[in-house]
């Protein structure tokens, strides 16, 4: 059995400059803070971060932003972190942030499409808006849909509540959000989890994410 349990610094040691990283969580709820902290320590730069939002200043992916590590942010809502607007509008070229906004449901489905081997999804969301610019519109039974393509990443940093040593993970409350979707959409998946237990201790009925998706497990998440 492969030993997947590592320290946070060991876990993120495989992440290099320029990587595309999905980060679970919704306004930091369900974001793996210990993995974010390790990424800040490693200080990798020019990252493309895919996350529902920009967290808060100095919290969640906001920490990576404050530390100047994000080149491109792909998110659905960034309004609660004023640093996003500051960095988008800065004249200092090396600090400039590119921000790509995607409707939340479309973001979820694009990640799920990548996770589940779909060539894209058709959604009515965004039809007739600037979100539709450059996208194929298909009419099915007299209704218009946008073709939205799969969104994948090199790494996914997800947060579990309980994880067994195989990687089987359970999410408590609303910490679930994007985590189980991202677990399938990245080449390499690291779960920061509150509690690591032995294989067999979790009731198979209650597991949200199978251990087959998880490459590395880091305990000690709060």
């Amino acid at each position, binding site marked *: 059995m492969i030993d997947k349990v590592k320290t946070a610094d060991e876990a993120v040691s495989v992440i290099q400059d320029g990587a595309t990283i999905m980060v679970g969580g*919704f306004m930091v709820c369900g974001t793996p803070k210990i993995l974010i902290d390790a990424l800040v320590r490693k200080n990798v730069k020019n990252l493309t971060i895919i996350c529902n*939002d920009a967290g808060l200043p100095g919290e969640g992916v906001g920490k990576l932003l404050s530390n100047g590590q994000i080149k491109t942010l792909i998110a659905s809502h960034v309004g609660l972190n004023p640093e996003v607007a500051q960095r988008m509008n800065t004249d200092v070229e090396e600090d400039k942030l590119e*921000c790509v906004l995607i409707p939340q*449901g479309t973001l979820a*489905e694009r990640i799920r499409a990548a996770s589940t081997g779909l060539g894209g999804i058709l959604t*009515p*969301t965004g039809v007739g*808006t600037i979100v539709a610019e450059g996208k194929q519109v298909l009419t099915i039974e007299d209704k218009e849909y946008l073709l939205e393509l799969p969104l994948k990443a090199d790494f996914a940093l997800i947060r579990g509540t309980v994880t067994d040593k195989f990687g089987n993970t359970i999410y408590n409350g*609303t910490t679930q959000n994007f985590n189980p*979707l991202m677990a399938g959409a990245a080449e390499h998946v690291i779960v920061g989890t509150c509690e690591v237990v032995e294989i067999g201790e979790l009731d198979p009925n209650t597991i949200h994410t199978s251990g087959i998706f998880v490459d590395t497990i880091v305990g000690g998440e709060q």
Partner: protein
Amino acid sequence: MSDAKAIIAQRVAKDLKDGNVVNLGIGLPTMVVNYLPEDVHIIFQSENGMMGMGPAAEESCKDLDIMNAGAGYVTATPGAMFFDSATSFGIIRGGHVDATVLGALQVDRHGNLASWIIPGKMVPGMGGSMDLVVGAKKVIIAMQHTQKGAHKILDQCTLPYTAVKVVDEIVTEMGVMAVTPDGLLLTEYNPEYTVEQIQEATGTPLIISPDLKPML
């Protein structure tokens, strides 16, 4: 005008029926909860992954794992369920939400909505709003009638759309307007204002309902 928001929230509450599945936007719409009659039980959906959301959590016993879409700690009612974001938006786009109540920057006579961006000034992102207004069975816009006197209800939105032809009803402190194929129909009014005043505060001709009545 300080009670404008209270008037709006109180009126929107009358639209929600016992057993409805409802998603409330951030800000003014969340105030609607305070005005629901005791015998009306609404199942609140929160798009970050929860059906059966309860009131805000008391500071002393909040669960850090249970948050609403506005980043506030909330409670789960008996019968609640948590799910991932794809399931949550499947519920929304799939037409399983009876009503959504959202604020707006602009609404026009065609039911077009602009609520997520002022180019060059404010780019917060659309969050879940584009999915909500496309998917919910009824879209209620709850907002102050004007932006400090500037028209928000227009012939045609000038800001980028959140979605086209999706709004069913607009509730403001001045009245209630239904979006119809002929334009906006004023169905209810706040007796503090005359119909002329309401029309003056509106950037598109209002059709006055023959059954016009007080809004509260």
